[in-house]
């Protein structure tokens, strides 16, 4: 019950924090007869559930490879692997006390982390989960040791030396440099003894774990059946060392269309749904009697990025005026609030409302956008800025200080995402108030990313994964970084990145990240809009399903799922 108790405590704290916390985790309860929140409720043993949503037939069974590290795959395979930390409901990383006795920094120079694994932790075939598994997991994600391993994520692993104690239950990692995101490491641990059956490490990692369904489990459930494009079935792992799971059997049903998922739920063919919301699906779900519908804001958010170099928005005055005139609240009202009325306008590129940071007691979120007066729809203020700088509006069109007409600005958006397309259309309208004309470049998946990274835009409508801390902002805005299509370059910002990468103290880390955010907002490099939500739908009979703001969705709490007692 260790994790369950801790989870309940965490959730209790969140609820106690009141409106601020709830702002990022808004709930729409469609039930005609409100029930106690599913998380606090007592659930009973037994039963089965059919879950549909993000999860599709895995393209790669290895969640640590670049191809396997997708939202659906992470969530699908969470119950089959051991994890040192898990992303809790509030987005913070919490120690998985089912597996670990402790994981702590025992020295800061050099940074040394000691992992103590519980003696009772074993794989479903009875083999112990131990330091050999840690060493293998580190090796395949460290290009120094395995250059051919196609890992999705190598940061941190590529600068650590591991030593394993004689009993193999204590692992010590010494880092070359401080690594602030050390809690994101070993989020999935691969079984070394299974790897050995696949061949050398690269073959095991790139082929063995990719092409073969996990034959064993280190989590609460083990796969019992898999039918490609149809379903995956899991049953309780009888060697599970943590708090007992409740449901006997859980099926993932692979349904690729969100609207068909809702219809299947309506017909009782699936019993738990977790997916991206839309007006259509939420309206349908709300109309289904006896259902609980929750919309949870995630750590990934929509935002705008402005081109900071070149002929148009390269002028910081014009860029700031544009950022000031944009009414983020109007965008939020017209899009997510149609199905999630409590969605807040995001005021930070660094943190989301309600988000918590491990070992930091305060609220890391600050509405820096409001303080910088960007994204607030201040058209008068924007026009004043422009007028002072010599810009003029003639016949409803903005002219540059030299008298020439401002060329139409290009808004690059993603054609496959209706919300991003809507955002571009709203921007197109809003900017007319400044006399700024825009053209919308709606790119498909094969062009959107490359055009964005290459800076083929004036305004980019994009989304950012906010769970990467300093690195999330560095990859988009750091000088010369591969994704920096805005062309932004600031020595002060880069210095903050360097400091942030070394800051092990959470308070200092939060301060630095907020300072980076303020810089980006005051210089009108980017503008946050709103968190991308997910919707959880299930019958009032279910409880113990805890959605997370992190990318691990609801399956991180799978051992807690069950029928209400």
């Amino acid at each position, binding site marked *: 019950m260790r994790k369950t108790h801790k989870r309940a405590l965490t959730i209790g704290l969140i609820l106690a924090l009141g409106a601020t916390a709830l702002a990022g985790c808004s709930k729409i309860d469609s039930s005609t007869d409100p029930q106690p929140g599913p998380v606090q409720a007592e659930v009973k043993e037994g039963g*089965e559930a*059919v879950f549909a949503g993000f999860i599709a037939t*895995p*393209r*790669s*069974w290895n969640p640590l*490879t*670049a*191809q396997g*590290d997708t939202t659906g795959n992470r969530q699908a395979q969470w119950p089959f692997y051991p994890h040192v930390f898990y992303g809790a409901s509030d987005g913070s990383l919490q120690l998985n006390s089912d597996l670990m006795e402790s994981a702590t920094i025992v020295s800061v120079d050099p940074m040394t982390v000691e992992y103590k694994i519980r003696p009772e932790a074993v794989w479903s075939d009875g083999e112990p989960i131990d330091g050999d598994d840690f060493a293998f997991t580190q090796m395949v994600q460290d*290009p120094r040791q395995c*250059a*051919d391993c*196609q*890992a*999705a*994520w*190598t*940061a941190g692993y590529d600068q650590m030396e591991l030593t394993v104690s004689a009993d193999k239950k204590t692992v010590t990692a010494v880092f070359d440099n401080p690594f602030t995101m050390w809690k994101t490491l070993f989020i999935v641990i691969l079984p070394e003894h299974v790897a050995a059956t696949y061949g050398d490490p690269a073959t095991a990692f790139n082929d063995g774990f*990719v*092409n073969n369904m996990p034959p064993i489990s280190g989590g609460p459930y083990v796969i019992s059946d898999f039918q*490609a*494009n*149809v*379903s995956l*079935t899991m049953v309780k792992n009888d060697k599970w060392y943590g708090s007992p799971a409740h449901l006997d*059997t859980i*099926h993932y*049903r*692979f*349904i*690729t*269309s969100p609207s*068909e998922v809702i*219809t*299947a739920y*309506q*017909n*009782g*063919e699936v019993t738990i749904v977790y997916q991206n919301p839309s007006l259509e699906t939420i309206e349908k779900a709300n109309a289904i009697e006896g259902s609980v519908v929750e919309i949870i804001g995630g750590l990934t958010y929509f935002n705008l990025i402005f081109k900071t170099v070149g002929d148009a928005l390269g002028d910081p005055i014009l860029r700031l005026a544009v950022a000031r005139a944009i009414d983020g609240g109007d965008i939020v009202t017209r899009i997510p609030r149609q199905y999630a009325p409590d969605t807040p306008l995001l005021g930070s590129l660094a943190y989301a409302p309600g988000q918590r940071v491990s070992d930091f007691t305060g609220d890391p979120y600050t509405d820096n956008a409001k303080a910088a007066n960007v994204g607030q729809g201040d058209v008068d203020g924007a026009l004043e800025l422009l007028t002072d700088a010599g810009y003029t509006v003639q016949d409803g069109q903005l002219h540059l200080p030299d008298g020439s007409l401002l060329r139409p600005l290009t808004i690059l958006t993603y054609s496959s995402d209706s919300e991003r397309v809507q955002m571009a259309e709203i921007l197109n309208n809003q900017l007319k108030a400044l006399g700024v004309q825009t053209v919308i470049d709606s790119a*498909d*998946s*094969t*062009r*959107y*990313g*490359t055009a964005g*990274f290459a800076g083929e835009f004036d305004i980019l409508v994009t989304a*950012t*994964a906010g769970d*990467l801390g300093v*690195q999330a902002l560095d*990859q988009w805005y750091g000088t010369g970084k*591969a*994704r920096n299509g805005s062309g932004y370059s600031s020595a002060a910002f880069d210095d903050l990145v360097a400091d942030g990468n070394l800051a092990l103290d959470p308070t200092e880390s939060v301060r630095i990240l907020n300072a980076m955010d303020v810089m980006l907002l005051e210089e009108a490099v980017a503008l946050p809009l709103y968190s991308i939500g997910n919707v959880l739908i299930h019958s009032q009979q279910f409880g113990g399903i805890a959605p997370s703001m992190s990318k691990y969705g609801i399956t991180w709490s799978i051992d807690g799922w069950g029928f209400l007692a």
Partner: protein
Amino acid sequence: MVRSIGLRVVNSLLVLLASSVLIFSLVSLAGDPLAELRQQDPPVSPAVIEAEEHRLGLDLPLPQRYLHWIAGVVGGDFGQSVSPSLDIGAELGDRVVVTLRLVVLAMAVAVVLAVGAGLVSGLRQNRWPDLSLTFASFVLLSLPSFWLAVLLKQGGIWINQATGYRVFFTVGFESVPPVGGFWAHGLDLAGHLILPTIVLVLVHLASWTRYQRAATIRALEADHVKYAILRGLPRSRVMRSHVIRPSLIPLITIVGLEMPGLFSGAIITETVFQWNGMGALLLDALRRSDVNVVLGWLLVSASAVVGFNLLTDILYRVIDPRMRRADHV
């Protein structure tokens, strides 16, 4: 007959080869199969991207990639998919089976109903059965299949809720978890088949009925039919031998042309009912610019075209004695 079939097969192979070159070029040039990987957050390292480019052969010139693919296909290897764990050959096999389960029954029902309705309509031209069937056909022709499918699903759910029994299913070809017991499993499969089958039947029934009606009317107006009636042949024999049999030929042609398309996936019906068959495979492969999967799909589709054309030729000869005699001349 054998020579004509042989020539047709050779022609089809040449067409298939030309189509594969065209489709390979178009899909390869249309998009980047690694676009999703390049946009992944956190970013994927350049070394991984390079390894994937090498695995998919994207580091080779286009003609060389094509030659690799064609050489592989001859040896039974359909090449690498963008999804590393996907065995294209096995996937095609699984998907064809799913599509066939959906399409075969629907087409058989649609053909029987279309022949019946078309004959009634043609033989009772401008009387109430014809007028009713014509009205129904035009209503069906004007209904978008997507809308029809959604409507039927909601209707099925309503009936389920009203009766308290889940008779109709809205996704997939069987329940999850699967239902145990021979009869219960059979009923479950049937429950999943009903709605998509109705959609496919209705979508095709309308146009096929019109073809059959027109062919029946043409046959009735033929001189040899009038002569047979004047000679005093029994009406039933005239109808069976000189009207119904020859009137089937246009419908066989139409069905023969449409079947390969359905064999390759009833895309809308598969999507709405989440039957992950050939249609869904093609859509997904196109979205990902997964060239080898698209080409594998093309092979299956082209083989279906060849196969159904041959079948159509054979049926012509079974139904129309003139064609059998022509082969011997």
